[in-house]
């Protein structure tokens, strides 16, 4: 054969081989899509650290989201002076594991903080998140509420709101809320957790929560949202205070779409995403997808 034919043969062979290679990677049906790039990962298991680790790995691994040298903020719910078993604040072991995963993925520094409702020193200690974060290598920060920057919001109710500069000065943010009932908004999930990243008088934001929650959430683009549903609060929210108010769901939900994560979160309480005004409006604002049937959800059991 001449040179031209040889080259054609080589190219055909290469194309054929890669086609076979790629074909081998494809499975059939929606499982294939889920394995490749799910919208949400729902992991179930009793040990918080293992569940969240497997969930993140199934979502693509922390390296998919954290680049070498990143300054990462992990934003748990540390708002209340409550011990972990009362499910008012994020599971400390879960937070610790996320810190570890970020550092392993090459983060330059991992910060953990929240603008708490009760005394911050007490909250960091009682929730055990302070110790868990520091043991895992994170830098625990006490917020200076006066260090804020006014940020614009294209909302119905809010036109702007001050955001903590400590939050703005990071490269990546991982939102780590805990799933709870709430007297006013019915549920508090990921989008409401951003209230701990802002300045100003937050009590005013409780007036039209079906708008204020998504409008505040629109200020932030989370790298990851990790919903802690290992233990959820089903009564007397958002503070709880008695173990009878807590139910074990042994679940962690991981996603990038904060509306989708919250939408899934409603199902943990036997509710529907369209029941929540803040989810409907977040969807309308284009912050994410609320229709669970349009999402690929990968579930897995962790030993």
């Amino acid at each position: 054969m001449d040179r031209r034919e040889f080259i054609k043969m080589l190219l055909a062979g290469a194309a054929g081989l890669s086609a076979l290679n790629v074909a081998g990677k494809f499975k059939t049906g929606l499982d294939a899509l889920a394995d490749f790039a799910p919208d949400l990962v729902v992991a179930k298991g009793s040990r918080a650290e293992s569940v969240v680790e497997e969930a993140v790995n199934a979502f693509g691994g922390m390296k998919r989201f954290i680049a070498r040298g990143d300054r990462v903020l992990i934003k748990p719910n540390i708002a209340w002076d409550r011990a972990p078993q009362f499910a008012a604040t994020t599971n400390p072991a879960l937070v610790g594991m996320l810190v570890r995963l970020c550092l392993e993925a090459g983060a330059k520094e991992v910060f953990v903080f929240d603008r708490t409702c009760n005394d911050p020193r007490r909250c960091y200690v009682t929730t055990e998140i302070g110790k868990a974060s520091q043991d895992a290598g994170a830098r625990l920060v006490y917020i200076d509420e006066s260090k804020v920057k006014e940020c614009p919001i294209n909302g119905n109710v809010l036109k702007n709101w001050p955001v903590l500069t400590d939050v703005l000065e990071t490269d990546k943010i991982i939102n780590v809320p805990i799933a709870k009932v709430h007297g006013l908004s019915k549920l508090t999930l990921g989008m409401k957790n951003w209230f701990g990243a802002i300045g100003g008088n937050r009590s005013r934001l409780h007036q039209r929560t079906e708008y204020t929650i998504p409008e505040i959430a629109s200020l932030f683009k989370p790298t990851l949202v990790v919903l802690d549903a290992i233990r959820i609060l089903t009564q007397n929210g958002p503070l709880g205070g008695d173990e009878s108010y807590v139910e074990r769901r042994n679940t962690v939900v991981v996603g990038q779409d904060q509306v989708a994560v919250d939408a899934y979160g409603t199902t943990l309480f036997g509710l529907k995403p369209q029941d929540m005004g803040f989810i409907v409006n977040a969807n309308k604002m284009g912050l994410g997808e609320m229709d669970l049937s349009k999402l690929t959800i990968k579930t897995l059991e962790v030993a």
Partner: protein
Amino acid sequence: MKILRRISQIIFLFLFLFLLIQTEYRGRDSIAYPVKIFLELDPLVFIATLIATHKVIGGLLLCLFVVAITVTVGRIFCGWVCPLGSLHNALSFAKRKRYLNQAQGQYDSAQAVKYYVLIFLLIGALFSFQFIGIFDPLSLLIRSLSLAVFPALSFLTELTLRKNFLSFRQPYYRDAVLFGLILLGVLLVNIKRRRLWCKYICPLGTLLGLLSFCNIVKLKVNEQCNSCMSCCAVCQGGCSPNSSKDWRRQECFICFNCVKECPKKAISFGFSFTDALRPNAVDIKRRHIIQSLLGGLFIFPLLKINPSAKLESPGLIRPPGSKNEGEFLSRCIRCSECMKVCLTGGLQPVTFEAGIEGIWTPVLVPRIGYCEFNCTLCSQVCPTGAIGKISLKEKQHLKIGLAFIDKNRCLPHAFGIDCIVCEEHCPTSPKAIRFKEVRTMTEGGTEALLKQPLVDPGRCIGCGICEYKCPVIDRPAIYITSINESRSNNNVLTV
């Protein structure tokens, strides 16, 4: 010996300041250090509370240690330990020696004024006017530093260095200027005469002086003395060290200044058991004592017949663990340890809301700071048990007041706007604020389901976090008043 005395003063001053700085939440529910130990060692606090309450307060029995030392070796506390005394010395250090004259050390009959101060205060205690803490040097120093000096320093360091070294957050206290000026005044009178406070006013020094009446320390001036009076120029206590015969052991701080200063080395301290049994007469005339007593007997009853004594005061929200008001006023020495330690800065000094008797006692002002649900720090640091030590479980069931909703200001009640921030923050389980759902019209003319808050008097403990967080920040729509407080049999709302 003078050097040893100086070292002792420095050590005790630093210990005092260290313990005061440690009077703060540091990550543990109990304070790790014995922060009230100076007050527990104070015999004046013991006596004053004994007279006012007719009770021996167990924690204060530590003062017997100081009593024993004073009875044996005199006013060594004043010279070697008292932190306020050390501060006086620190200021006088700047004064040049040549401005000191012998009048400094020669006993001055005006020094007897401090006995009248002590008598007046103890009579007051008898009528449960517990003003001893206002004049007690340890209480005065703790109060001035906690409410004025440290907060002002915090403010300065935040302003200049952008960092706070003394405390976690910037403290704010009412009447801080007054407390700062009082300490300034007490320290500035050193310009007129060295340790003027100690010689003429201090009731603790007076008490220790009385207790020194038969101590075994003796000052000896030998034949080398040429009456140059240099010893008197440097004497701190005004005890006439120039003559063994005239030396007043009840005024002497045993500071060793005279020993060091004497050019002939004629002065020395020693022990004598025989001299111990020959006490100097205390220089107060019986006439003056009777005048003091009568003065007290006249004034204090007049102050007590104010009708406010019978009326409950709504703003008088006392810290959880407080005894009922009568006993509280007898025990509280206004040292402000509780105000210093309060996590949220909500405990503030009152001026006249509790009557004259209650001046500078602590109240909770929820708009400034609420009572943190899981905290019992104030009950741990109160030296006299005015705020009795309580467990966390007890604290969480004790009521210090009750929340009331002003329906004319509350957003859901008055304007049909959703809120219930108060319900959200209520820490009890189950919550003491519930809501009822009502149908209202919004501004747009559409019907909406609104949540209106309601307080449950059975569950509300009056912690004040609702008032603190209420968005109607100029005058909160939910506010606490003292009624229904557990400590009172009278100030009760429901049956």
